[in-house]
């Protein structure tokens, strides 16, 4: 509704060649996502983008900026204000052979669509015995950190990860954003694409030629695995979305104290790349998982349990969770008290490093 940074336009729409080729460009995540969508629309005539305000306005975060003008009102259109309607309509479009790329304006407004997402989108392929696939890529600007009104800073990954039939992914920087969105939006299965809105405007290098560079632990040729963003020997910090860059900052600070932290970007929240988790923690023998969502029944529990299961013999301390609290996401003034900050992550690292048996 009010008060968050959203109105900025991307710098004048960057022209780009039809085939992106092997180039690297500095882009914001907003630009990278916009580029990916533009290419998906160009490459797949069945791809359609719709949601609240994503046509003429280009979305409140401008992720779909210019796409309606370029691809026409049939490919990119505004809907009435009803999230269940948007997702329910996506099911029908998918049944008619389209690849819908709906947007829900903010994380907290995915809740009205949960029934269509869980009972329909996630199950139609199964219910129809594979005859009605659901190639739906649901974009959800996600997570907090922008001093926004209520319901504009939610983390729904644990909810989505628990739903059979969904895949869930979250990029941590512009490069990941471009490649993961292009990948997700060309799959035959439903993918929830969680965009870390606090990172929309940070710039970074996008290597367009790197699409087939395998991430750590992922099968070559497809960006489906987790990714080591920084190597380290003493402890693994595990995160996704907006928390990855914070963890990289923390790793930098820890290095000053001689602590060598590995940072693993989970990328895929479902399916989780358990092999990559285990490979990293078998090496470091210690792990801290970080997320913004509340602690209890958060995805951190799943990550911790996968690590414990796979590294029980070598683990030097129980996996720590540094997370949001079991409280409703607070108003801007208290946001920094809620989201795991550098100090709280450092405390978590310290607890793991100083853990003494019995």
């Amino acid at each position, binding site marked *: 509704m009010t008060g968050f940074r959203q109105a900025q336009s991307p710098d004048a729409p960057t022209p780009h060649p039809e085939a992106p080729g092997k180039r690297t460009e500095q882009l914001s995540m907003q630009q990278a996502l916009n580029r990916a969508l533009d290419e998906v629309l160009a490459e797949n005539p069945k791809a359609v983008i719709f949601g609240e305000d994503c046509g003429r306005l280009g979305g409140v975060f401008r992720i779909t900026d210019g796409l309606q003008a370029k691809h026409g009102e049939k490919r990119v259109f505004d809907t009435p204000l009803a999230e269940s309607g948007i997702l329910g309509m996506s099911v029908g479009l998918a049944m008619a052979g*389209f690849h819908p790329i709906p947007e829900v304006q903010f994380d907290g407004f995915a809740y009205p669509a949960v029934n269509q997402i869980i009972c329909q989108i996630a199950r139609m392929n199964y219910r129809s015995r594979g005859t009605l696939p659901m190639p739906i890529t649901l974009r959800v600007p996600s997570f907090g950190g922008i001093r926004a009104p209520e319901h504009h800073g939610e983390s729904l990954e644990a909810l989505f990860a628990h739903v059979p039939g969904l895949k869930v992914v979250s990029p941590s920087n512009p490069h990941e954003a471009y490649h993961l969105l292009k990948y997700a939006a060309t799959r035959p299965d439903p993918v929830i694409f969680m965009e870390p809105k606090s990172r929309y405007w940070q710039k970074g290098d996008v290597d367009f030629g790197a699409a087939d560079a395998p991430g750590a632990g992922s099968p070559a040729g497809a960006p489906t695995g987790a990714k080591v963003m920084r190597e380290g020997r003493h402890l693994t910090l595990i995160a996704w979305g907006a928390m990855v860059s914070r963890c990289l900052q923390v790793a930098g600070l820890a290095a000053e104290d001689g602590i060598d932290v590995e940072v693993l970007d989970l990328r895929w929240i479902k399916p989780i790349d358990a092999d990559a988790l285990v490979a990293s923690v078998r090496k470091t023998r210690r792990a801290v998982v970080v997320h913004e969502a509340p602690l209890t029944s958060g995805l951190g529990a799943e990550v911790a349990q996968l690590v414990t299961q796979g590294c029980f013999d070598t683990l030097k301390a129980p996996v720590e969770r540094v997370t949001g609290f079991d409280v409703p996401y607070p108003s801007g003034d208290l946001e920094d008290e809620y989201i795991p900050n550098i100090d709280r992550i450092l405390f978590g690292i310290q607890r793991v490093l100083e853990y003494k048996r019995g």
Partner: protein
Amino acid sequence: MDTLPLPDGGTAAPPPTPDQLRELYSLMAAVRHLDAAAVAWQRQGIIPGYAPELGQEAAQVGSGYAVDTARDFVFPTYREMGVARAMGVDMVAYMSTHKATWHGGLYDPVASRLAPIQAVVAGSVLHAVGWAHGQTLEQNDGVALAYLGDGASSQGDVHEAMNFAAVMKAPVVFFVQNNGWAISVPTERQVAGGSVAARAAGYGIPGLQVDGNDVIAVLDATRRAIAHCRSGRGPVVVEAMTYRRGPHSTSDDPGRYRSLDEERSGAGEDPLGRLRQRLLDDGIADDAFFAAAQAAAAAEEASVREGIEALGPRPGSEMFDLVFQETTPALQNQAASWREESEHV
């Protein structure tokens, strides 16, 4: 509210020919017979449950008969056996859902033009809108038929669907079977204002209320509605007023919420008897025809029962294999340990 002019001046909804009337009767007789049989199968332990559509044969067969399966697509609830039958769907595959073989049924929805059986009340109404909008985007002339009940009309999704469809002029027929009840709750405590068709005006679209026990009226209304949609004029609401003569499902006990007197007065004329009388009056069919229809219905029921009884459980591996188009390592691992642990035993 009660008639809808035809875009082409009449050819889109011609009155049914004598052959068609006889076919409609045969369909309704087959449906009536199979429906009663399914209730019996449940009592005999052949299937665990069933939702009978006794009394709704005219509404279901009349509307399903209007569908052009070469281009239209139908979105049923859990009670549309008569629609499926009128559309020519394989009845063993359809009934398999009530055998608890597979949620949604074993028929191929793409080939049969019937979406999987939907257990969420109002769950698929928005799907019809999306599918229909897809026709517009591709300049096809297919029409979506969304089935819903009087109870379903209370769900928010139905409002969103009607509004979306009207804003986008999507070719959807919202076909409401107002059968007087949503389990134990009567229409007057469910549908404020008393008519779902009357809601259409609020969206600026036509709404038709039709005698749901008169198969000819239902067929005509549905054909008009489909023709309206097909001509690009946007969605239509058709409300077929009928009555759920049986229990909500085989586990329901209507005696707890309605009396036999109420049932008798609410049910109105029996749709099957009514068509029979009409055919007799018009000299379109005779007793021999009715006897033959009855015999065909009985034979059909026997063969469906045979098919259902022969239906084994699906292999457990389908639980894993049908979740995604592209499976995941986690799922493959789970399938492997499931296989191992069930073989072990």
